[in-house]
């Protein structure tokens, strides 16, 4: 077997090398040596990005599974599997990220025996753990199908309604609870971001990001793996994204209005710049773009609007978790390069695993049929089932 060193493989290897170096520093010298966190900034980039953004970016599965299986929306089936795969990998990597950030990760199981039901963190932890298990069972049929094990698939299908309801219940709980984490810091978090409505914002943005992420990953994998893009699916997702963005934007406006913040947010200040950036990227630009039919019906336009909106909500989470504390603390926090490199490594591993899964598992089975059909001679099409087997190679 020949392994060709392409540009992206070289980038991947470089990221892995730096990440492994940082990992060694983390576990041999401690958190202080690897990060710029300190007593004033006990939560840094790993909480702000890996945890808050990671869980948000993995919200696609519960949005799509909810639409397809709960509301029985037709025609979105082809994006269910990539969304479930993304979420399953996302949550696994979130847990890996947690092992870096926790000071005593070897005691992570204490959560199961020393429970504190008053703690939001406890609730998030339990939900994430259970939901990862649910995602495992939603993902398992794909693996079983690959090995043609039909009996266990029928078992899992019997439990499917329970899995789906449980998955959405748990997602509702922990996506919103990530916002509730910050409710206890009214004197520390800047009033632009501290709001009693934080849990609603976190849930609302998770739904919008789930849709945007599905558009992003479908487009991206169609490029990377040469799948045919189902434009009708993307257009419907784009329409739903527009609605979700409007709901989010109105909620945010209502909150600013209700708390009498409107005059302050238009005044230039350090926090205001970040707020403007966030609002422009998450609402103003994508909503404007998606309002034009020409953009909403083009794959490129949808892709661009989704990516901008993803950056917008990532900015929002970083504002809540990092920028919003800088005035209280009195100095800036900038992650050390080793913090970035660990995060990059985790993301790179995620992309790699996604690629491996797409290569060896039936993640996009239907599209392959669509792709293969025109290229095959007519006699082969009539045979039907052999094509499916070939498509898996």
């Amino acid at each position: 077997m020949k392994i060709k060193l392409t540009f992206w493989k070289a980038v991947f290897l470089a990221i892995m090398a730096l990440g492994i170096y940082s990992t060694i520093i983390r576990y041999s010298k401690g958190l202080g040596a690897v990060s710029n966190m300190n007593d004033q900034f006990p939560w840094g980039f790993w909480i702000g990005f890996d945890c808050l953004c990671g869980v948000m970016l993995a919200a696609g599965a519960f949005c799509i599974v909810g639409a397809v299986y709960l509301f029985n929306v037709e025609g979105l089936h082809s994006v269910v599997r990539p969304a479930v795969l993304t979420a399953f990998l996302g949550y696994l990597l979130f847990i890996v990220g947690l092992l870096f950030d926790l000071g005593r990760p070897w005691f992570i199981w204490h959560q199961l025996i020393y429970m504190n039901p008053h703690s939001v963190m406890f609730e998030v932890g339990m939900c994430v753990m259970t939901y990862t298990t649910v995602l495992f069972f939603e993902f398992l049929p794909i693996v079983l199908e690959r090995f043609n094990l039909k009996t266990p698939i029928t078992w899992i299908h019997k439990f499917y309604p329970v899995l789906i309801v449980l998955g959405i219940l748990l997602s509702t709980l922990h996506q919103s609870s990530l916002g509730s984490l910050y409710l206890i810091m009214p004197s520390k978090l800047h009033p632009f971001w501290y709001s009693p409505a934080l849990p609603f914002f976190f849930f609302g943005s998770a739904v919008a990001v789930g849709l945007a992420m599905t558009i992003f990953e479908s487009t991206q994998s169609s490029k990377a793996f040469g799948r045919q893009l189902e434009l009708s699916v993307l257009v419907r997702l784009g329409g739903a994204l527009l609605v979700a963005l409007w709901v989010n934007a109105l909620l945010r406006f209502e909150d600013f209005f209700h708390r009498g913040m409107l005059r302050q947010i238009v005044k230039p200040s350090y926090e205001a710049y970040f707020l403007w950036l966030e609002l422009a990227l998450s609402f103003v630009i994508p909503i404007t773009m998606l309002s034009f039919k020409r953009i909403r019906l083009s794959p490129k336009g949808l892709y661009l609007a989704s990516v901008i909106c993803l950056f917008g909500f990532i900015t929002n989470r970083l504002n809540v978790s990092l920028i919003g504390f800088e005035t209280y603390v009195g100095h800036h926090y900038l992650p050390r390069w080793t913090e970035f490199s660990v995060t990059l490594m985790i993301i790179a591993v995620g992309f790699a695993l996604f690629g491996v899964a797409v290569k060896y598992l039936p993640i996009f089975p239907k599209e392959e049929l669509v792709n293969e059909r025109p290229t095959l001679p007519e006699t082969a099409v009539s045979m039907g089932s052999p094509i499916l087997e070939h498509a898996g190679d």
Partner: protein
Amino acid sequence: MSKALLYDSTICIGCKQCEQACARQNNLPYDDTIAAEEKESAHKLTAIVTRGDKFMRRLCMHCEHPACASVCPVGAFHKTKEGPVVYDVWKCIGCRYCMAACPFSQPKYEWGSLNPRVRKCIMCPDRVAAGKQTACAEICPTGATKFGDRDDLIREAQDRIRQNPSTYLNRIYGLHEVGGTCVLILAGVKVEGFGYPASEKIGDTPMPEYTGRVMERIPDFIPVWSLVLGGIYWISHRRNEVAAAEALQEARNKDKTNGTVR
């Protein structure tokens, strides 16, 4: 009856003997360099802050309703009935939510350690449980740090303010802040100048209530939301079943009519 510390900054002479006694009590190193550090850290659980000729002591406030205890996912912090808020290092997983949540930013972290602990003043719980004073109160040469029952100390603080209204600001910091604390501070100048958060900023509401308002809804939310989701699932799939059954029926009827025609 909850125990408490009353710190009167107008009597404090800044001798830092409390710092030294605290270090000894907690087996922490103490020397001139550490004495010069005017902030609390993992190796300095209490600090005397100097501003001009004024001194102020900083330490964990031992809230009546501690944020750290309410946010800890594994319950590593708890408030004892005597007053101290104590820490169980064995339970701790190192998530540092206590540090993020504390309105006084008192919990500190051993950032350089491979098995790091959260450190803060724990108000000498063993001494307090044995009926003794805290190490800092015992050593204080002027009585600036005084140990006693919280109610008695509040009364004494009020008396001191009444007798010397020109010396003191008419305020006991910690009486109502975040629902009351077991460290009470008397001062002639504003404590905010020494790094304490302003009373109006942290408010009188116990910190756990901010999350409690959301958390207490969850036991109701879970069954209701499950039912709603299950209901949606049932309805949306029922519609399909009905449609399929109707289609089948129609097909059969068609067959029948076709049959009769033939």
